[in-house]
């Protein structure tokens, strides 16, 4: 009988679990031993069980297409991705450090702008940022934290080092899939949870709720938290409902809320109007309040910014926090850490060329075919160029796009991001992965044990976004010290 590992290639990139086809890394010894005890039929059965669970639990995400929105089952790979807890503790520290510095930076941007005045970053970058909201200048959110929920994307390059690829500070999504992935894995491989010391993750909603109550305008009596969703047609609606349910918070749409003359936010309930203290909003700044931002927004709440500025409601993340979620600002994060915290960055950035800088631009245009070029403000993997995988025509058309609007583009070397064994037709093959841990900051800072591992299911592909053929895996942080 052929092994499921046959011809497993570890020479394409750093593999998270394997040294080679025949040798596992220490973190995955137990998993591999267990997988070897199963035959192909067993493994197929587990895969089918996982698919059935996903269907029955109704875990889905919405794909926008010409034929309308389709609810798709969440693509999931049953083989977990594993990280040693000793490594994780360092990453966790690095993530906390990074978000703390980012929040200092945002406070500074809407306050004194000392970082700019001291010459650490050109002021032009902030002034020209789409996500800089002049309406927020002078605001002081509780604990001086603007970005309360952050999803930071990490990738491991062939040197084995984890790099920060980007910080998602607007409305990062994916945490519900992280939680559901664990539930499914527990159903599919219950035996493994007996023998391996895997850190639990299911306390996330509790921490989220604690964080939200810690930023409420008042701390006496009951604090009403609500999750504000754009509605059932949003691709992450499943997640909004899931988190609201797990926290016991109200799931509200813009139409359910109203801001009265007293500048307080109320929700329309069967008992009449009830005051809301904290809103975990899953709507972009642009659509938050038609009184201040986009006038045509039907998703938001008229007067919400008034209520927020009057200090009557807390918004997470705070409006304007997205100013630090910009791939140009990203390049300055290591400097922020040094400047605001007087520390050396624990997690390195990927080297980044800013097209707004003439020297960098020249280099970028000369090396387009080797680089990854990204727009500064898009998410979801849209509008980017992966040089080595692009046709000459695509490269040339990107050259023009960049020259027209250099501020809006950055370039990075094409990383050889790490792989992990993924089940492809009863056989394991390496597929590229990233990792999105979630960091919460209010009165305290919390990092999920692991995060959402996204996997590019197509052979050779580096794009892990679910909207573009990506899937996900359970992520295990395992304690190995007693072993």
């Amino acid at each position: 009988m052929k092994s499921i590992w046959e011809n497993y290639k570890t020479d394409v990139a750093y593999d998270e679990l394997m040294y080679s086809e025949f040798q596992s890394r220490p973190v995955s010894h137990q998993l591999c031993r267990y997988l070897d005890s199963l035959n192909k039929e067993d493994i197929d059965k587990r895969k089918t069980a996982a698919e059935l669970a996903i269907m029955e639990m109704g875990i889905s995400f919405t794909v926008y297409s010409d034929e309308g929105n389709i609810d798709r089952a969440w693509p999931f790979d049953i083989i977990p991705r594993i990280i040693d807890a000793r490594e994780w503790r360092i990453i966790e520290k690095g993530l906390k450090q990074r978000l703390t510095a980012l929040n200092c930076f945002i406070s500074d941007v809407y306050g004194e702008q000392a970082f700019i005045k001291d010459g650490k970053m050109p002021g032009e970058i902030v002034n020209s940022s789409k996500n800089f909201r002049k309406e927020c200048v002078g605001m002081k959110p509780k604990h001086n934290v603007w970005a309360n929920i952050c999803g930071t994307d990490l990738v491991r390059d062939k040197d084995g080092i984890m790099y920060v690829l980007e910080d998602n500070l607007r409305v990062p999504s994916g945490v519900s899939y992280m939680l559901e992935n664990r539930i499914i894995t527990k159903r599919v491989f219950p035996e493994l949870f007996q023998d391996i010391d895997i850190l639990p993750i299911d306390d996330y909603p509790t921490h989220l709720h604690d964080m939200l109550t810690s930023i409420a305008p008042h701390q006496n009596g009951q604090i009403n938290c609500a999750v504000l969703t754009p509605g059932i047609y949003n691709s992450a609606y499943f997640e909004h409902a899931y988190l609201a349910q797990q926290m016991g918070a109200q799931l509200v749409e813009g139409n359910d809320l109203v801001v009265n003359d007293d500048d307080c936010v109320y929700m329309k309930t069967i008992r009449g109007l009830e005051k809301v203290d904290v809103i975990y909003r899953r709507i972009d700044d642009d659509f938050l309040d038609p009184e201040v931002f986009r006038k045509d927004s039907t998703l938001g709440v008229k007067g919400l910014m008034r209520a927020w500025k009057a200090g009557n409601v807390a918004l997470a993340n705070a409006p304007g926090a997205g100013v630090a979620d910009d791939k140009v600002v990203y390049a300055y994060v290591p400097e922020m850490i040094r400047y605001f915290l007087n520390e050396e960055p624990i997690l390195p950035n990927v080297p980044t060329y800013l097209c707004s800088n003439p020297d960098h631009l020249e280099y970028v245009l000369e090396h387009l075919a080797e680089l990854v070029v990204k727009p500064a403000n898009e998410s979801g993997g849209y509008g980017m160029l992966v040089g080595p995988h692009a046709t000459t025509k695509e490269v040339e058309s990107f050259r023009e796009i960049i020259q027209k609007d250099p501020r809006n583009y950055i370039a990075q070397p094409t990383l050889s991001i790490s792989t992990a064994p993924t089940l492809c037709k009863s056989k394991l093959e390496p597929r590229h992965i990233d990792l999105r841990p979630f960091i919460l900051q209010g009165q305290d800072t919390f990092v999920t044990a692991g995060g959402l591992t996204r996997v590019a299911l197509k052979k050779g592909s580096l794009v892990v976004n679910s909207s573009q053929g990506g899937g996900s895996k359970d992520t295990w942080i395992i304690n190995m010290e007693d072993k």
Partner: protein
Amino acid sequence: MLSRSAERIYWLARYIERTENIARLVNVHMNLLMDLPKGVEMSWRQLILINASEQIFYEKYNVANERNITRFLLADDTYQGSLLSSLTAARENIRTSRDLLPDEAWEQVNEMHLFAKKNLETVANRRHRVIFLNEILKGCQRFTGLLSGYMSHNDPYAFIRLGRNIERADMTSRILDLASLLLSESRSDEVRQYETILWMNVLKALNALLMYRQQKHSRVNGDDVLNFLLKDQNLPRSISCCISEISECITKLPNNGDIPTKISELQNYAQTINTKETTQAQLRGILDDLQNKLGGLHNEITNKWFLIITE
């Protein structure tokens, strides 16, 4: 509780109840037809009469035979009164109310929906249809049981009970309507002969045969069945019992205004229906009236709790 959530949950309960009722109706009608001799003037057509959907049916189909009617009532996703459409609407309502209900309730509805979609084609065949309908009935009961056992009996639960009982009272009145229709339309001796079988099947449609026997200690006869299904205070599917449940929920809910008074009036109306001195035709008029009054109650609920005036 948000007004919007209250509305969705209320409709969720109505759609689940409707799904269950359609399954019961088809099931019982099928049994009834098996009991009756060939040639008796009773057909599948009556099923679309009580749903008031004859016109829509004939826009899509030519012949009112078993195959077409069952397809129309169970599997037609373009007819919004079908079992599949009701189940789909229930799923959509629970998908958007997951923050208020236990996970298991969502999973139950989702599984049932997957099951229905997968087995739609089998309903053409009688044997498979029986299995299909039983699965659906069990699924709906599991849903009801789950909520009763897992959920706090709070405001959301009150809206579930409200929706369920309004839908249920409506369906009971329609089934009684069907029975009256059969008896008034086709009073040939041959049908009269089978009257007992007809009333037994009506009781079965509402899971009430055993309870009827325990209560009445008599052979099944039309008048007793009518009274039992209209006025009994303990049978879950009797109209009076549904109204009592509705009343109980409404009393618990905030800002109920004059609705409790209106419900008392409705209860009195139901209790004073005199089945002995009415003809079948008059009875159909009374049942029609009941259905309209239930519709009025629905509007009151909508205005009171679902549409909140903000200023």
